[in-house]
């Protein structure tokens, strides 16, 4: 029965491989250039994809000449605080929108949806003016605060709480639990996968954000990795492509490692997995 399918399987893998080349070759080339001690081959295809005289000298120069450690710490601080604070804000708000009936709750939800539909970049100029009036330009607060007003987080948490079985919550209410206890003790533990997903998304978004931090931060030593490295690479160090590529690897590596560790939250398919598990146990 499997036999007539074989050419189809081959074609399937061929198609996968073609797209894989398209998706992966930029970073593979970057890695290869960064590891090549001798940059003379980097423009030749396909030799450029294999490191020539491999070595780590370009990484050494990046670490010597760019304050990578400092940038990393900044990125980590900004992304962690954005992740924690915005999740902590979104959870009670999403809970209230889904579990507590009040006048205007629908209007508020629609407002969140509209906010999600508008390009956040439009807010850059007004927010810049707000922070300059608050005298908070060039501070970490200016970087983090606007990111905390994430309508997406509220939307996601509302959907998560909406799907909870109503009986458990009502039983706890009858037993006299306050809404606050209900939220943290009963509702939240059942939504853990959604919360993790929200936290990881927020972290990655904050880690990669370039524009807003670049607009509000002036002090080089306050800059996160994405901004600092980009400025250095397009400015003083742009002459050495090898060094640029090594710096790109340094900047991308933490994200890629983090992605590999948490990839099931991004591309996992819990529904399919669950279905297949049940069908397997059923057999």
């Amino acid at each position, binding site marked *: 029965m499997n036999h007539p399918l074989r050419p189809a399987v081959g074609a*399937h*893998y061929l198609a*996968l491989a073609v*797209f*894989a080349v398209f*998706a992966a*070759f*930029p*970073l593979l080339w970057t890695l290869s250039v960064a590891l090549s001690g001798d940059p003379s081959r980097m*423009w030749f*295809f396909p030799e450029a994809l294999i490191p020539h005289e491999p070595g780590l000298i370009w990484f050494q120069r990046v670490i010597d000449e760019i304050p990578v450690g400092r940038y990393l710490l900044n990125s980590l601080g900004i992304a962690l605080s954005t992740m924690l604070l915005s999740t902590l*804000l979104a959870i*009670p*708000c999403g809970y*209230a*929108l889904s579990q*507590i*009936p*009040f006048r205007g709750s629908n209007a*508020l939800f629609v407002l969140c949806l509209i*906010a999600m*539909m*508008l*390009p956040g*970049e*439009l*807010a*850059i*100029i*007004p927010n810049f*003016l*707000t922070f300059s009036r608050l005298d908070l330009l060039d501070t970490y607060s200016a970087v983090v605060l*606007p990111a905390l*007003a994430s309508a997406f987080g*509220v939307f996601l948490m509302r959907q998560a709480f909406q799907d909870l079985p109503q009986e458990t919550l009502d039983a706890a*209410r009858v037993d006299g639990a306050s*809404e606050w206890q209900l939220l943290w003790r009963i509702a939240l533990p059942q939504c853990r996968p959604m919360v993790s997903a929200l936290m990881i998304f927020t972290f*990655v978004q904050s*880690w*990669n954000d*370039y524009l807003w931090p670049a607009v509000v931060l002036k002090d080089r030593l306050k800059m996160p990795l*994405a*901004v600092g490295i*980009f400025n250095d690479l*397009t400015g003083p160090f742009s002459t050495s*492509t090898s060094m*640029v*590529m090594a710096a*790109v690897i340094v*900047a991308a590596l933490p*994200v*890629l490692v983090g*992605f590999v560790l948490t*990839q099931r939250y*991004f*591309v996992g*398919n819990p*529904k*399919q997995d669950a279905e*297949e598990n049940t069908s397997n146990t059923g057999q």
Partner: protein
Amino acid sequence: MARPGVSERTAWLFMAPFLLLFATFTLWPVLFNGWLAFHDYFLLSGNTAWNGFANFVFLAEDKQYFHPALLHSLIFLLVVPLLQLVAFGLALLVRPRRPGTGFFRALFYSPVILSVAIAAVVWQQLLLPDGLVNWLIASVTGLARHHPPDWLNDADYALAATMLFFCWKYAGYYMVLYLAGLQSVPRSLLEAAMLDGAGAWARLRHVTLPAMQPVILLSTLLSTIAALKAFQEIIVLTGGDAGTSTLLVYAYFVGFYGQNFGVAGAVALLLTLFCLLLAWLQMHWLGEHGVLRHGGVK
């Protein structure tokens, strides 16, 4: 649904911290842009003056910069159908459970999690006239060109190159959405259609697409917004030169370099309205009562 003992006050208390920030950094900018659009704003003195529709008249007459920016934004919207096709194709490719499809899923998604700025640095190198992309094209087609295209500095190619970069960067994101959508197609319906002799196209048109309607709508909406706000991608790749300035690039330069916040506000207001209009149109066409659900027969 009566909830004994739960007062409305509790709801507002739960939401207060978020709403405070949301009002300041999300709602206020929208209102402020709307207000700015009808004013002159003098940054140094902080003075403002109502100027009626002068900012919009300025835009209408700015043939040199605003008209091309508008055109480029409209052209950029072509990435929306392209992204849907690529993402749907990728989702079909990584859906079967064969060894390695999990790996390919992660691989196709990986450009999404890279910082735009960092990815752009790589592509700037790849797209140089003597860069790897031109070498690749030359070795595949066998044609050696004396003047290979300078993708990011030549106005003939730069917009297309940024659009392709955009697709490379985000296709994985929409792939995941479509992957989730494919799960919602009832297998029993597909099998029934097959037994009834429906061909591949008929099954796609009358079973798969109607079942995936919510996901198609979501994905189209999100990518339309993403395409309209294409800005970081352009700033870091071309700096807005070589015929790649879009509406937001224009607003940014007018605001931060031209110090003309009123005109920037007018662009922002127009873009907000345009976004909402497109969203409304898409909900109309692709929504519950749109073409996807009815299989072309009304």
